[in-house]
């Protein structure tokens, strides 16, 4: 597999899994109004995943659904941050906030890259992400004095770092207002970094692929 395909799958898997996690809030968000808005975010994420899988599918001679559903859990390249099962609002918003900050950094890098197709897609994604960021920042601002939220951010911080390549981490720390000074890599264990496959991912995969696996090769 080329480095490009690997990169596309990393991005797509992150978006698919975080979108899947976010879609779990459909029907149970804190207010009905927030529920509707949050569901749009989840759909956007999955839409981004689909576009990224389609790009990868061209290179890998397959299709987006096969990439999204037909690999084993170990073959997914998503960061542990999105694998975590967080069914509490404080943690979900903390993840949204950190994910958007980290994602923004790598989207900026992609837009500036020489890969025209990917740069174009990244720019499209970025235009939708504007609203995700507004949403995440709105909540983060309202929750800034709430211990449930600040503790959740602290807990998830190593995972947020682990979502990015080492060279982007200091900038993330700067933007989020966390201490830098070369302590970053010490906070990270392999569990926080891409490559780690948490049990939660396997559980998610089993649910996500249950219907599809029930009749392999079927059209749905």
């Amino acid at each position, binding site marked *: 597999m080329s480095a490009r395909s690997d990169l596309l799958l990393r991005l797509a898997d992150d978006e698919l899994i975080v979108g899947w996690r976010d879609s779990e809030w459909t029907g149970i968000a804190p207010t*009905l109004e927030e529920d509707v808005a949050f*569901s749009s975010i989840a759909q956007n994420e999955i839409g981004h995943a689909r576009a990224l899988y389609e790009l990868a599918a061209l290179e890998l001679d397959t299709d987006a659904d096969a990439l999204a559903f037909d690999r084993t859990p170990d073959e997914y390249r998503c960061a542990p941050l999105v694998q975590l099962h967080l069914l509490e609002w404080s943690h979900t918003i903390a993840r949204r906030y950190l994910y958007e900050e980290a994602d923004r950094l790598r989207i900026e890098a992609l837009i500036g890259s020489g890969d025209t197709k990917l740069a174009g897609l990244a720019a499209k994604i970025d235009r939708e992400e504007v609203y995700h960021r507004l949403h995440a920042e709105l909540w983060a601002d*309202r929750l800034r004095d709430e211990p449930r939220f600040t503790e959740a951010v602290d807990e998830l911080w190593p995972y947020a770092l682990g979502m990015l390549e080492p060279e982007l981490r200091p900038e993330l720390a700067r933007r989020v207002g966390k201490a830098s000074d070369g302590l970053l890599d010490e906070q990270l264990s392999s569990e926080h970094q891409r490559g780690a496959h948490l049990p939660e991912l396997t559980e998610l995969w089993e649910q996500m692929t249950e219907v599809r696996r029930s009749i392999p090769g079927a059209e749905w």
Partner: protein
Amino acid sequence: MDTRTQEFLAYVQEGGQVEATDWLPEEYRQKLIKFIEMHANSELMGVLPEREWILKAPTLQRKLALTAKVQDEVGHAQLIYRVAEDLGKPRDEMFADLLSGKAKFHNVFHYPTVSWGDVGVIAWLVDAAAIISQKALLKCSYAPYARIMKKICWEESFHILHGRDVILALMTGTDGQRALVQEAVNRWWGPLMQFHGNPIAREEDPMYVWRIKSQGNEEARQQFLEGYVPQIWELGLTVPDPALRRSNDGVWSYSEPDWAELKSVVTGHGPRSQERLDFRRRFLEQEKWVRDTVLAA
């Protein structure tokens, strides 16, 4: 009935509409709130049987469509609760009454979903039954409710197509997939026939008398049968009612639905009634801090 109420009744029976700020007879207001509340509760509870299939959807397209459909249902709940709130009943109180069983939600949302076949049948047939009821509200005498029904019916239009698309994919698929659909139809038929309520004459149905809805229960059921039994039969599916037939003058006859089952289910004794209410209660309580602190203005 006093004169003012009689005049109001005559006014709405002639097609007149009223707004939130108009004088409403107390009987009308109470019946209206109860009806609207049950509708809102149904949209809210209807999310739960479908929600688990969002997570299991077998393609990206289906996942997106199902998420959007369920999102619409949450949105409808918001629109409908807002109407009831403006009639004087706070949202928290409506949630409390739903969870305590004091307020009800439609029978179909008390049943389990078992397979992807259910996803198709719900979007195709259950939603169809609901849309017939919803269209009968477009001319509701209470104008704020009539107006939101327009948006609701417009959004439902993609739900119907999505449902048909899911069913047709299954019916043109493997034998196993076709079996999923037939099995789901067999299970949902009973609740579907009960859905529009017992065949009380519309002149005796307060909802019709006050022109909250524009058709009686049996009219709605006949419309459903007329529209959808041909669709079921043309796919080679069977309906589990040997007595179902259409007479020459277009009237459908069928086995008497189980009204005792309907009553039992809507009073909270359905196979999934308590489990779903518990699920709702769990998240309502868990996220209460959000509403109390962050969202309190």
